[in-house]
């Protein structure tokens, strides 16, 4: 009863932290399975931790009891997933942090551990509290909550730094008065994975998104990602693979190439980005497929066919679907090279005497 009244008081007086940059952080707590033998601080400390964290406006506590089962249905029978099941999964909020708790008694002391894990990176901050067995559970729970807060704050700080670096890498660094050409694309995509379908051009879409964000104009061509004629037979080893080389209709030559440029000129295109994106399944991690991709781009000035810049890069994508993973891999590869590539295009386009 004493514990219960403490809990009620605590709920009323639990601190309201100032909202920080990491407001609305979702946390899943998995306390140890309560045993009949557990008593004192061991029996209540995680309950108090949970109450403490749930009273903190920064955090949203999420339940994870059913996630595993629903995901089993999803990943193993996506085609058969009912509307109801799909909507259940869709309503779940993703946890950004996991807090794995356990407590054990050793002699006259109780060791209480929380393993605070950032889901995205897998980084772990352990929190260990060793208290006497007769320690006041309220006090121990509050101490634990403070340390868990600190651990999350540290991991959030690191995360914010990394995010800032990623965002900075996606900004176009060109002179404010530099002229930006009108772009068009032709970047076919090929999957090396056996029986995989050729998909929409992810590389092209990624570049489009990037150029749009950076105020560049673009024009769609009639067949941006398909070859004009039957694909030429070419043995291509895109990445290391034991599989048979695949056919690819990626490159235009002769009349096909000239027709493409003619269409571009007619539509006011100044620079056309030609290239190829290739992907393959790389490995499997649990339910996740991992795919790798390589993109290669050349920027061709339409007026005189001069190549302004060329680049290539690798990317990786992971997803429950191999198809989507390959798309993500191409997107990732494009994201890695696009900023510098476009900077070089604009620079060359604006170069004196160019």
């Amino acid at each position, binding site marked *: 009863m004493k514990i219960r009244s403490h809990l009620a008081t605590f709920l009323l007086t639990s601190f309201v932290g100032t909202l920080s940059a990491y407001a609305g952080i979702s946390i899943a707590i998995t306390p140890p399975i309560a045993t009949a033998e557990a008593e004192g601080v061991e029996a209540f400390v995680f309950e108090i931790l949970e109450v403490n964290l749930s009273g903190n406006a920064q955090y949203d506590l999420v339940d994870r009891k059913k996630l595993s089962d629903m995901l089993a249905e999803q990943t193993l029978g996506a*085609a058969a997933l009912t509307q109801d099941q799909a909507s259940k999964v869709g309503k779940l909020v993703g946890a950004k942090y996991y807090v794995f708790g*356990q407590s054990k*008694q050793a*002699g006259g002391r109780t060791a209480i551990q929380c393993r605070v894990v950032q889901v995205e990176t897998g980084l772990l901050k352990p929190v260990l509290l060793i208290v006497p067995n007769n320690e006041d559970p309220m006090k121990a729970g509050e101490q634990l909550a403070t340390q868990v807060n600190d651990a999350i704050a540290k991991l959030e700080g690191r995360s914010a730094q990394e995010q800032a670096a990623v965002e900075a890498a996606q900004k176009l660094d060109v002179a404010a008065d530099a002229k930006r050409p009108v772009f068009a694309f032709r970047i076919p995509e090929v999957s090396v994975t056996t029986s995989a379908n050729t998909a929409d051009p992810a590389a092209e879409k990624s570049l489009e998104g990037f150029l749009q964000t950076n105020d560049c104009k673009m024009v769609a061509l009639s067949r941006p990602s398909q070859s004009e004629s039957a694909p030429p037979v070419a043995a291509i*080893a895109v990445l290391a693979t034991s599989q048979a080389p695949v056919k690819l209709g990626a490159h235009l030559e002769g009349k096909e190439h000239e027709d493409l440029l003619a269409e571009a000129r007619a539509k006011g295109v100044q620079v056309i980005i030609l*290239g190829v994106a290739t992907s393959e399944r790389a*490995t499997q991690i649990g339910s*996740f497929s991992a795919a790798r991709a390589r993109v290669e781009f050349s920027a061709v000035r339409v007026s005189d066919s001069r190549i302004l810049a060329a680049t290539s890069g690798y990317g990786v994508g992971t*997803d429950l679907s191999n198809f989507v993973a390959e798309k*993500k891999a191409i997107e990732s590869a494009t994201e890695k090279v696009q900023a510098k590539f476009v900077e070089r295009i604009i620079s060359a386009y604006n170069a004196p005497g160019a």
Partner: protein
Amino acid sequence: MADVLKASGRRRGLRGKCRRGGFSLRVPVVSRRSTTGYKLGSRWDQIGSHDAGGVSSCSRWLSAATPPGRAGIEFDTQPGAGYLFDTRNLAIQGGGVLNIISVIAIVFAGYCVAKEVPKIAFLPSFSDFDGGTPMRAALPAFDARLQAELLKGWNSEVLSRAGLSVVVFEQKLRAVGEPSVPMLRVLPSGFLVFCVLDQPNKQLRVYVNRVSAGMALAEPRMFPIRDAKSIANELPREVAKHVAAVAGLSPNDQAAPSRSGTQKAVVCSLLEPVNTGGANPNLGQVSPLIRAVLESLVASEEVGATLVERSESSKLLEEKAMNSINGLDSNGATHLGRMVKADLILIPFIHFQNPDRIDTDLFAVDVATGRMLACRSWTGGLLDTPPAALVRELLFEAVQTAGESSLSPVPDDRGLRHAEAGFMIGLKQGWNGLRQLVATEAELSIRLGDAALALASDDEAIMRKAAKTFYRDATPAALHPLVFEYNPDDQGISQISALKKSGQLDLLLQQARQVFELPMTELARTNADDDLQLLAELWIRLGDSTKAWSILTRGGQPIQELALKSPYYQTMVVALMNLGRYQECVDLLENRKKWNSLCTTILLDAYRALGNKQREFEIMRLNLKSACKTERTTSRFLDLAIERGEAGPVVGAVVATGNSWMISSPRVRKSMSRARVAAGQKELAISDAQCGLIAAVKAKDVETQKEMRAIISELGASPIVSLPAAREFLVFPKGFRIDLIHDQTVDLKYVSEVAAHVAAFWGCPVHVRSVRVDLTGCSGYQKLSQALELNFFADLLTHVSFPDGSAIGTVFLTQTKLISKKKDYTGDVYCLSRGAILVLSDHYFRKFKDSDARPLPLITAIAAAKLTGVSRMVRSQTKGTGSWEEVFFPPPPDLYSANGNLHLVALDLGVSPATGAMLEKVSPSALMQSIPEINARAKAETAPPAGTDLAIIIEFNQQISEAKPTIINP
């Protein structure tokens, strides 16, 4: 100036070549066809038998030879498919033919150097006659220290065979994090070492196995054990010397690496402590605490490492999966490549004599290869903070060593990796003859499963085999929870209950999940029935039947359709039982109309849980083999029969169907006595109750004693104190004899005592002959468990020419361990008959040395006194004919000793009065006439021996014919 090989048209067709033994390498033809700079790869020609390793070697060495930032060689070692070599980033400094030659020279030299340092890997020790002895408790310390000894004292590379699932996870993370790096693989070892603790013989058998294609178990070297302390303190050094001698290792004379200096923050993954100490009630409490304290230290400012979570990777993946389904992040938070990669994996090996003082050996393992890089050891109290300086040293040394290793990469060898994985899978069969506890088998299965799955992570067929071989033993569990209630006395179930109570079961299941979950999920990604079934079974055993059911029903497919799939339905039934959905389980099976014997047992339990005794009894009557398969089902069958007034026919059915050891068990005997009373079989009921009472007194089973006394009293009889000998009912004429042949593995005095007991029981002289036969040469002999496959050996013995004359039975006595590898029973046994020949090993009886008041010669004599010819005659004289309801055959439990539960039966060397009455009807001359017939029949049913087995038989015959018998008279 760098010259890109691929871009140079004039070098098209250029070839380099190096050759060493069976290894040959050609630089590929390079061509270029692309308008956008897309480069075409080329094909390695496959020459010689070691190309896989060779190409890998060269690829890595070429990679290392290129300038930083330029190395990006991709390779693949699929045999038979040729090798695609991506030359996009391959650059050679300076250009020209000389440079190519120099690169090849580096490749060649590297290959040679890399071959020089032997790679040693250790598996956890196995244990025979497992139990909570100090010797057994010291075994984990031995395992850890042996590895540490090799790592520190000998010039070798020690490869970890613990925590490899995490190594593979790290390797995959690298592949998804950085697309231009090759997929790394766990290195195969050159020598795989493991030991078997033979407690009865106080020795340690050490197997140093050379890893190669088609590798076989090496001959063991025996190390005598003085006492428990010597296992942890002296043996590791002695065994390390032996391993070094076999593997050709030289003492490590290199200076210890510098222990000072600064380094960048190391990212570590700290795994669960390893302790393969078998059943240990303290482990569930101690292990998590040690890890908590250690984690806290490693992440502290004193040590300054960054930790990443790898024990709960699957939970993190689930979160990412959910985000992926929800489309919350296109390739951000869901991208596994964003996970921070560990530089090192830290594996603590713990061992303790008492829960307060714990020895820890902390190993740092290389994520790229699975090499052990460094080790530090300390002893301390449970919640004591480990020495920070030692841990810092460990990390520094490990990072330094890893850095040095990365400069001299070792080639992957797919063939060797798979050979090692296959060998480990084969060990599971080999350890069947070892008497190990459920906890020990779980620990071994987790460790071997972990290693085999990691070594074969690029081959789904081997992965599937490894998963199938190990997941079941790795996850100790009852078929469904009702078993704990219905069959609490079962040896396996009672062990699992104890593990559950101490918390060790949770620990084991957690470790098993970490090893099997991801690989088996990967295997199931194509939704093949077999793989889904396997994955669902894993989850049932891990205690999550809801998830298993989700997997089996594939997101809600109609159950009726899925239940038609065989054997898929079997797992569905087990899942339903674990979910407590008994009626659905019953409906599923009854709708199918056909099911296997396992499902019969499940169906019986389901009906029992539902309280439908009528249908339960009907199912039993219709499936007699299943009803009489185990003690608990037989006992239940008899109890239900009494309730339904059908005791008589059911007693007959049980006797006709059940085997003697099952009928002799106290549990069945109790039910049988009650059933006989109900059936009005007064004399037999008295006889059974008298036998049951004697057994219960010996077993100190007070409840059964009361029950047996009550039956005897109700029937107006008196209890008897001991059973009479067979000679009181069956008298053999002069000249009859029993032959007892031993192979000199048993002490002669001991044999004489056994013979004296047998002679006194039958009232017949026993002729003892001695032969010297090396049974280890038999093709049915297993080196790992040092056991002889009994069915094979008994067949073999039918081809021996035993002494002519009037022997009413022949017993071959040995101390060699005997095992059975039959489908319905795999494990150790002590006797088997073929015709009138009985093969008997007293190895098993030594188990009772400490727990049974009966002298060992008497126990052996009880088994030896089983004369198959007599039993057959009794059976043929009393067995009825007609339908099963009319068959009645009184079991003579006192004549049959029982495999597996001799200590429970607590038999006397005597017969019950009822059996005595039957013996009186046996004609000695008819018995004598039948012996050659049944021996000839047995011989005709076996294949003639060949090879070494034939040589053994010839030698056997020679010695038998020359051996002079020692005659032991009654």
